[in-house]
């Protein structure tokens, strides 16, 4: 029983001093004077507003990526006790005292610092020497662009951290695979891979590239596993299922959970409400919900409604009409019906109110009990203020001559009869007898006589139409498009018989008492879709660059400039590291092709083990570089130098791989080896020197004189700010 007492309790701790040293150096190098400058630097102005919105729990949509990154930054703000009260309007603005600059910047800086030991461990796990691994970590440590990017409230360093973490945990997992599958460590690293991948994707969609790369590598490894005939079918299946669970199911679940937290934390309505559908807006506190709280759910004959176009592009707008008529002749000489204009108006207005009328009856009030409108019913839509009927006829629309004009009918007695019957088609119905519901139902209005569909064309009318958006009757309805769908946003049962009373009623706010809640999945789907499809128009930027400029670092970005002292922070890399990384990539690719072709002819220049190492390390580093770099050539958005940093990290990891390979296999005798080492020392020292030289631009301190700045302009294309005297 007490046998264990016979042995002394021994705790053996193994501390890799390399790792400790690297971590400390990384922390010092990234965290030093972190809260300097106490001013908004570059994209902090962009991320900062989201942090503020998080602090105030106000809903927002950011089309640049998923919410996890913003959440992490906001977490820093939360730790520092930030109340969100800061106007993020201009780069260079001084932070007020309530902004905890240090803790806001802490998280990116920490993750940036941890990239250094991660790089070390990745190379160790790839079975390279500790010397090479140490070299890789040092290169990351002294890379000015990575330092700049991690010392500010930006997301790239967080992204790079998760990418490297995913790679490292996969390598650990793979190395455990051979000796001890299905142990606790094996599961830990496997799951950590999945978690890190989803975090990377959650920070920026760029993480998806590395995730795909890891999936591909895992796929190749699994394929080898399938070919391993020493394993039974069942155990192969178990292996595959475990990988599927950890690398697909867990990341997807994590990704959903980010959105869950996002939507739970942000429950107040805010500036981006308008982008979302009415149903989504109604689920937020304040905003539309205040209006729609307790509206009647079912649209009935006699209901007073506003109709919002579901598409929300180019701007969200409501079906609208006003007293003015279409001009008799347009500028291009075409004629119109000269009837009352129907437009789509992007602001709330009393002229957005319409009344649903039963064609068979005269009254415009809701009967008791209300008779709900169902899918397929024929209705007339009466404009509330002018009491004219929504009408369309065989007259060309003002800007889209191939479609029909929509008007509110005025009888001029010119043998142009009213054609104002519309069939209500609920597109998202569950059965054919569904009732038309406020907010939830998406409805198409099909004209009974001509089968034209009420549609927002997206063009805005000229002066006579007050630049409101054009509404047309699309005759050749090609499939379903959101611009043809409408939903009821505000709704009340009409009670006033007389037009005067009705006008008063239309002006009064709606009220009633049902609330509608969307399920999480519906909200997630909508938000995700909006993030993916929302496009910022024309974002030309002074410092935007093309991917070709990145490899050679022909461009830099001025992040911050002190208006008085002239101190400045630039995103500018260690040019020597960049150049060496390019050379290493080139050498790797050439050597790889050379070996590959020679091996195909059964000539083996290097031993089998070395070859396998060469392929796996290269597949990871060159592959990581390629997947994080090449896709940018196909992107149409505005690109900046910092988009290259993840690719650069992989490229830097390749340098020691190539160097060690060269020393091990190409320098056969002792003399070249010694010379090589000497060269290495010289090269490392010059990298350190370059780092020191550019560190004033990286840290923003000390302030340099104009002459010193001019001497730092090593490339003509670099834009270093030199004050005129």
């Amino acid at each position, binding site marked *: 029983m007490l046998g264990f007492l016979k042995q002394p309790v021994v705790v053996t701790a193994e501390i890799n001093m390399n790792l400790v040293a690297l971590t400390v150096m990384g922390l010092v190098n990234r965290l030093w004077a972190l809260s300097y400058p106490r001013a908004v630097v570059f994209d902090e102005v962009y991320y900062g507003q989201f942090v503020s919105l998080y602090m105030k729990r106000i809903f927002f949509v950011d089309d640049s990526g998923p919410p996890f990154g913003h959440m992490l930054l906001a977490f820093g703000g939360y730790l520092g006790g930030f109340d969100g009260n800061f106007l993020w309007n201009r780069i260079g603005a001084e932070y007020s005292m309530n902004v905890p600059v240090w803790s806001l910047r802490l998280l990116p800086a920490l993750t940036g610092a941890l990239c250094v030991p991660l790089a070390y461990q990745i190379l160790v796990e790839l079975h390279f020497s500790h010397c090479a691994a140490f070299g890789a970590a040092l290169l990351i440590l002294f890379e000015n662009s990575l330092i700049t990017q991690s010392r500010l409230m930006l997301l790239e360093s967080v992204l790079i951290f998760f990418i490297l973490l995913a790679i490292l945990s996969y390598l650990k997992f793979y190395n455990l695979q051979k000796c001890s599958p299905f142990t606790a460590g094996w599961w830990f690293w496997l799951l950590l891979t999945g978690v890190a991948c989803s975090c990377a994707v959650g920070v920026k969609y760029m993480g998806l590239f590395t995730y795909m790369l890891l999936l591909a590598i895992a796929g190749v490894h699994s394929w080898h596993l399938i070919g391993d*005939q020493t394993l039974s079918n069942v155990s192969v299946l178990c292996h595959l299922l475990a990988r599927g669970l950890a690398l697909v199911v867990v990341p997807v679940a994590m990704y959903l959970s980010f959105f869950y937290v996002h939507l739970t934390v942000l429950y107040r309505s805010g500036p981006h409400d308008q982008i979302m559908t009415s149903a989504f807006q109604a689920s937020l506190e304040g905003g539309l919900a205040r209006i729609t709280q307790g509206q009647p759910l079912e649209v009935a004959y006699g209901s007073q409604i506003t109709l919002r176009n579901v598409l929300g592009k180019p701007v969200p707008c409501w079906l609208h009409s006003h007293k003015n008529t279409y001009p008799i002749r347009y500028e291009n000489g075409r004629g119109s019906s000269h009837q009352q204009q129907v437009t789509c108006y992007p602001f709330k207005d009393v002229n957005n109110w319409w009344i649903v009328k039963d064609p068979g009856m005269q009254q415009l009030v809701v009967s008791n009990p209300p008779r709900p409108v169902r899918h397929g019913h024929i209705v007339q839509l009466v404009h509330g203020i002018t009491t004219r009927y929504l009408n369309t006829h065989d007259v060309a629309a003002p800007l889209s001559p191939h479609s029909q004009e929509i008007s509110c009918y005025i009888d001029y007695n010119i043998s142009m009869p009213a054609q104002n019957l519309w069939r209500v088609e609920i597109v998202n119905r569950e059965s054919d007898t569904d009732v038309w519901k406020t907010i939830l139902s998406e409805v198409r209005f099909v004209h009974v006589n001509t089968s034209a569909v009420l549609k927002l*064309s997206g063009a805005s009318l000229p002066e006579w139409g007050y630049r409101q958006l054009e509404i047309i009757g699309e005759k050749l309805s090609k*499939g379903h498009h959101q611009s043809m769908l409408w939903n009821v946003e505000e709704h009340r049962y009409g009670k006033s018989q007389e037009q005067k009373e009705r006008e008063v009623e239309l002006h009064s706010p709606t009220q009633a008492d049902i609330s509608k809640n969307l399920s999480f999945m519906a909200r997630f789907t909508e938000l995700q879709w909006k993030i993916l499809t929302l496009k910022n128009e024309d974002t030309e930027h002074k410092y935007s660059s093309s991917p070709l400029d990145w490899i050679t670092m022909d461009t830099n970005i001025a992040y911050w400039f002190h208006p008085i002292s002239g101190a400045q922070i630039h995103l500018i890399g260690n040019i020597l590291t960049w150049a060496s990384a390019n050379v290493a990539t080139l050498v790797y690719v050439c050597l790889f092709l050379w070996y590959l072709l020679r091996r195909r002819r059964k000539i083996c220049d290097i031993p089998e083990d070395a070859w396998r190492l060469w392929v796996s390390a290269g597949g990871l580093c060159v592959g990581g570089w390629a997947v994080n770099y090449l896709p940018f050539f*196909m992107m149409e958005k505005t690109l900046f130098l910092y988009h290259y940093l993840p690719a650069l990290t992989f490229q830097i990891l390749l340098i020691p791989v190539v160097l060690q390979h060269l020393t091990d296999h190409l320098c056969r005798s002792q003399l070249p080896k010694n010379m090589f080492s000497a060269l290495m020392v010289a090269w490392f020292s010059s990298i350190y020197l370059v780092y020191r030289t550019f560190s004033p631009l990286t840290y923003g301190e000390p302030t340099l004189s104009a002459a010193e700045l001019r001497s730092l302009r090593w490339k003509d294309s670099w834009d270093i700010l030199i004050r005129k005297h």
Partner: protein
Amino acid sequence: MPCEGTRLRFPPCPTARTPFPLMPCAVVPGCRRLPRVGAQMTLAVGCCQAESGPRCGGLRQRRPRRPAGEPSRPSPPPRAWAPLEAPVGVWAPLASITLLSFASRFYRLSEPPHVCWDETHFGKMGSYYINRTFFFDVHPPLGKMLIGLAGYLSGYNGTFPFQKPGDRYGHHNYIGMRGFCAFLGSCLVPFAYLIVLELSKSLSAALLAASILIFDTGCITLSQYILLDPILMFFLMGAVLSMVKYNSCAVRPFSAPWWFWLSLTGVNLAGAIGVKFVGLFVVLLVGLNTVYDLWELLGDLSLSLVTLGKHLLARVFCLILLPLVLYTAQFAVHFAVLNKSGPGDGFFSSAFQSRLIGNNLHNVSVPEHLAYGSVITMKNLRMAGGYLHSHWHLYPEGVGARQQQVSVSLYHSLSLLPASDHLDPSCSVEFVRHGDVIRLEHKETSRNLHSHQHEAPMTRKHFQVTGYGINGTGDANDFWRIEVVGRKSGKRIKVLRSQIRLTHLATGCILGSSGKTLPKWGWEQVEVTCTPYVKETPNALWNVEDHINPKLPNISLDVLKPSFPEILLESHMVMIRGNSGLKPKENEVTSKPWHWPINYQGLRFSGVNETDYRVYLLGNPVVWWLNLVTIGLYLLMATCTIVAIKRGAQLTVEFKELSEVLLHSGGKIMLGWLLHYLPFFMMGRVLYFHHYFPAMLFSSMLTGITWDTLLKFCAGCLSCSMGKRVYTYGMLALMLLIVYSFYLFHPLSYGMVGPMASDPNSPMAGLRWLESWEF
């Protein structure tokens, strides 16, 4: 050693013993002639016989692996499916499907006798070739040249205007052009038949694939009109066929049929890209296949490096150089034929336009160097960029400063003259030099080109450009520095040749055209801005086009005519930009790639209303859905097979061959389908349903191979007679299904008159299976 081994491989391909006795060379007429040709070659190059002798011996042992292995096999088990007996068994079906194919494509070819759908474009372009007027299109010229040629040969004189769909042809002869397209479209069926036959060695698979294509309403419709698609698909299938053929001839490299098919592949590739850039996908397919091929050869240690080099060179020559030469040649023809000024001039640079007869730059002579006091017009270097323009109208209230508008217009209308403050009329001519500070005065309105820090009307981040001042007096915001791209200071500025950048002196911004159209108040001309972002884009570059200065001698511009490579490059730039410019408009309903394989929605070729003669491009839904199911089925079967092999399952010889066909041949076709389909998901331009048809061809061939293999698998698992029955009945059922569905849907291609399908009296009543179909 071109003749290496030919002689020793003389023994004809073993036809009798192989399980599917259709060895590659037994089918091909070229290959059948092969031994003789080979022998002649050997004789002709007798010297290499001696050296190659021993090598060939080695080759022989290695090469005929399959036939050599067979005799040792105990008598092959009886097959459930009938093996192909003789070439007759191959030719007779070929002849009949070809006949059927032609019959189905030429039936009612002249109906409807009016312009249908895109005939309005391609017919018009054919006419341009006949009239030799220059035009611009986003596709390379070959397809339209062939249409023009067909029209010319069939007696069409190029006078029909092809204004809009629905225009009656009247007495104009359009049958020639339609017939040409239908002829090429009919060839697809025999091509598909031969490809599948070659790949699967199974007659029924080939017949299935061919009948799918014959009885697909979509393929029929698309082949019957003056369109580029039948021409594109003809070359595409031609390329695949010749690729497959030359792969089967691989046992006899450098033999005549091998060379023939290899170079034919190259020719077809040139044709495919020459018709549409979509042809690049088939180039990719052939390229990947070739890389794989070379990789296999490289791994073959019995081949010397010299032989490998020859293999490589042969492919480089036939698959890269030959297509390039042909492709360039067709552009040469294009430019030679179109020598008159026409609607396409404005898209091209001034230098390009000087080639065209009738263009006002043709044979014009102007002073060569720009001088102070010259009257000039300036053209923007952006693709389809217009001329710097101004008029008496002011910018409206609220749009920057209320000064005179400056814009870019596609028509020559304005003149500007650079003026300098120290201009002395008595003095001799002073030339404008690189780096000079100048003022530009609008001749008509005598206002200066001016910019200031007001935001531009459309591009808010740029500065507004206006006309300001009167009779030359203005302010400091009228000064511009003129610079020539890539030139040092002090040089003169050349008309047409110099690319000029105008930098605003006060704000440092650069004069450019944003490419956005101004609203009504600006007469829908293109916006001119001053951009503070200093980037080298053609938007911000200009050249001087017209130039009048009586004090300077005129020189002829003939020396400035661009060389052929320059024209070629420029026309490609214009085409590529034009293609990427075809963006869908906001709120426009466009076809999405995922719609296509499910046959979600077709295209109206002709007619809308009940009284019209309506033709609707829509695939035969049964066929298309069969194709769709088959892709899933194929993936499933391929995965199962490949995993089974990887897990070391022991397969019988029969199944091994089947899985070989499935993975290898099916894989090639599958790759073709992927290459012709997936890229569309990444394209930003407007897409149409007919873009799927090349992929559909591959999908149909895959259907043939997959079902044939599946039925053979099933049959192989059952007893002999039972298996045979399953196989035969399965194939018959599939064929009948296809034919019956064609019977149902044939009015889609051959014209529908009368009520729409939603009406119960319509002949198509009950056939509108999807709500999105519009017939």
